[in-house]
């Protein structure tokens, strides 16, 4: 039985993999945000690249399809001057019966320095980092329902840049919490960074019954749930939920939980609206709000590259230097 942080941290507490926001210290989370901030400024110049990971090979291993997340990781790697390989797993060896282990060992043998992994099994990134290729930096791009730490960190950065310090803020996450790895990672990060209250809002079928044990307060009603909120995060509703006896229809969901201007008015007047994307207009959120002046949804996208550059640089640094040494002048 291992504590996730004995896997993802070096002896002196720096990242060597980025698997989950759970259990990371406030200082480390803040360091990620600060480093990401510096990368935001490099993204605004003409030459957006820095030579930090030159000569390193990063492999995108997406066992679950995702063009957007994969492209942001690809851009982040390129802007760190790394070489990037995109592996379309569905059509490669694993469908021919090769085990996950063997696929990864083959890649490691090709001198890969970092894997960005998205997998449908919770704990997959942890498994890879701990048992298969511990010397390759593993960045979790989403594992099952468990964690999506880079998304959570870019959400934290968005809040910090638009609403200041997360300490003392009331944040609501709305939608399918049960199946959401983004929500779980956000809850851990918000709690560690000192949010006054983290609320989850949705119907009973989509809120895990033990969500309080994670430090989030469940609400079934938008008016009560959004009262005094500084930040409203809307989650994407997947079509399958309507098929598995979890929800009757998109229409009823929108009526109860869809973020309209009327419902947004329950929150603080300067509250910001976020969404990890892609948005389903008219299901979770109406266009007037998504495109409105309280929405920071597009900013989230631009911060995504900087945050990914930050964690990739930090994890690679931790892999190269298991114990930090004094630097020369």
């Amino acid at each position, binding site marked *: *039985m291992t504590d996730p942080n004995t896997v993802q941290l070096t002896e002196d507490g720096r990242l060597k993999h980025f698997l989950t926001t759970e259990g990371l210290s406030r200082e480390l989370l803040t360091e990620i945000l600060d480093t990401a901030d510096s990368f935001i400024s490099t993204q605004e110049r003409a030459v957006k690249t820095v030579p930090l990971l030159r000569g390193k090979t990063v492999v995108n291993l997406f066992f679950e399809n995702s063009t957007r997340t994969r492209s942001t990781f690809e851009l982040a790697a390129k802007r760190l001057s790394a070489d990037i390989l995109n592996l379309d797993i569905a059509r490669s060896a694993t469908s021919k019966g090769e*085990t996950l282990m063997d696929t990864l060992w083959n890649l490691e043998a090709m001198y890969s320095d970092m894997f960005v992994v998205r997998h449908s*099994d*919770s704990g997959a990134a942890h498994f890879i980092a701990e048992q298969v290729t511990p010397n390759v930096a593993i960045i979790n791009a989403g594992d099952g329902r468990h964690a999506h730490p880079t998304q959570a960190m870019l959400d934290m950065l968005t809040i910090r840049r638009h609403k200041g310090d997360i300490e003392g803020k009331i944040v609501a996450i709305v939608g399918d919490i049960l199946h959401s790895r983004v929500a779980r990672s956000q809850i851990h990060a918000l709690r560690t960074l000192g949010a006054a209250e983290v609320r989850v809002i949705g119907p009973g079928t989509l809120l895990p019954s*033990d*969500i309080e044990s994670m430090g989030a307060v469940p609400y079934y009603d938008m008016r009560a749930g959004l009262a005094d909120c500084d930040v409203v995060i809307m989650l994407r509703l997947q079509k399958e939920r309507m098929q598995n006896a979890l929800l009757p229809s998109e229409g009823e969901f929108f009526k109860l939980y869809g973020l309209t201007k009327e419902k947004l008015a329950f929150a603080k007047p300067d509250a910001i609206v976020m969404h990890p994307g892609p948005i389903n207009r008219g299901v979770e959120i109406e266009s007037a709000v998504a495109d409105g002046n309280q929405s920071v949804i597009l900013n989230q996208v631009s911060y995504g590259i900087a945050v990914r550059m930050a964690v990739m640089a930090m994890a690679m640094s931790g892999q190269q230097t298991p114990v930090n040494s004094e630097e020369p002048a």
Partner: protein
Amino acid sequence: MRYLHIANARVINPQTQTDEITDIFVADGRIATLGRRPDAGEIEHTIDATGQWLMPGLIDLGGHLPEPGYSQKGSIASETEAAARGGFTHICSLPDTKPVADTSAVVKLILEKASKAGFSRVLPLGAMTQDLAGEQLASMYTLSEAGAVAMSNARRPVKNSYVLRRLMEYAATYDIPLFLNANDLSLSDGGCMHEGPVATRMGLPGIPETAETIALAQILLLVEQTGVRAHISQITCRRSVSMLQQALENGLRVTADTPLANLLYTHEAVTGYDSLYNVQPPLRSERDREALVQAVARGELAISSNHSPHEIAAKKAPFSDAEPGMSQYDAFLPQAMTLVARDELTIEQLVRALSLTPANVLGLSQSLTEGADFNAVLYDPRDEYTLTASEIASGGHNHPLLNRTVSGKVAQVFLEGCRIS
């Protein structure tokens, strides 16, 4: 008459409420005298058992043998050897072999191989339905004639209440006992651990308590209706314990067992995604664990192994992708003894749950009394060793104590007077 003399052992026999240091004399595979020298004959061999404990041989109500069909996980020889090392004189093998034990040929094969290996005796459980598919009756009478001691569906679902009722009625006709698993697949399907706060945090699909209790309710009501001899295998929930108590109070004769792992571990063991703790039925909460321990203490539950050996590749995968099951036979008795060391059970309660109660379920006699077959375990509580890979007889190294220190060792095991370990 030539005797085997076991001297000075602490003899623990729940059936006679014995717990004393005394001598035993064995001849012709049976206990000749207990606590006194035999009148005539000579001592062929003496074992100085000072400091050791002698108890009736352990009986397992359910373990998975990988033969026929899963040679990469082990064989009948390797698993019965491991079982003997763990203190078992008898083990019931679950029918989920390949092919499934739904023909007398498979049952006979298992019995032959076990006999040839010469370790623990195997009491095969035959399949309740053809191919364990849960729809058509298997030839229970024929299987029983071939040597199956009871029928089981090995945790695979029975199609519906109608089929379950007919299975029970048929078995009851010939007084064939059924070993039933309480598992409602519509609630447990896709789940790989107990549904609760740990599963929520880890994002793993959970198996709610109701998957067991609802199925248990269905089973108990049908048992009442049909009068079949029923044993409930592998219960894991506090609520199930109270349902069973209630059933007993109402006069229903059912027995039940719980796997040792559910008495030792909880769902917290899954933190860190160690696939070793991916087991079916799942490890549940501390409240459930405590209720199971108390039920064992009261004599309401037997302890079974749910032994499931696996090759490395089956377990070396992300948690929910790994095959469920833990290798348990090796060092079984020392593992179980931790409950005594922690004062959760008395030694009498533990030994009862491991041998007397399972014997009663199977209609066997397993007791250290004059005239009884000498089926016994000699245990040394002082021995301490590391359970390395080379010390494990089972083909499955998915054992929770692999490379850990074990306190206590099975010194010798006797089946009908012959040493099997």
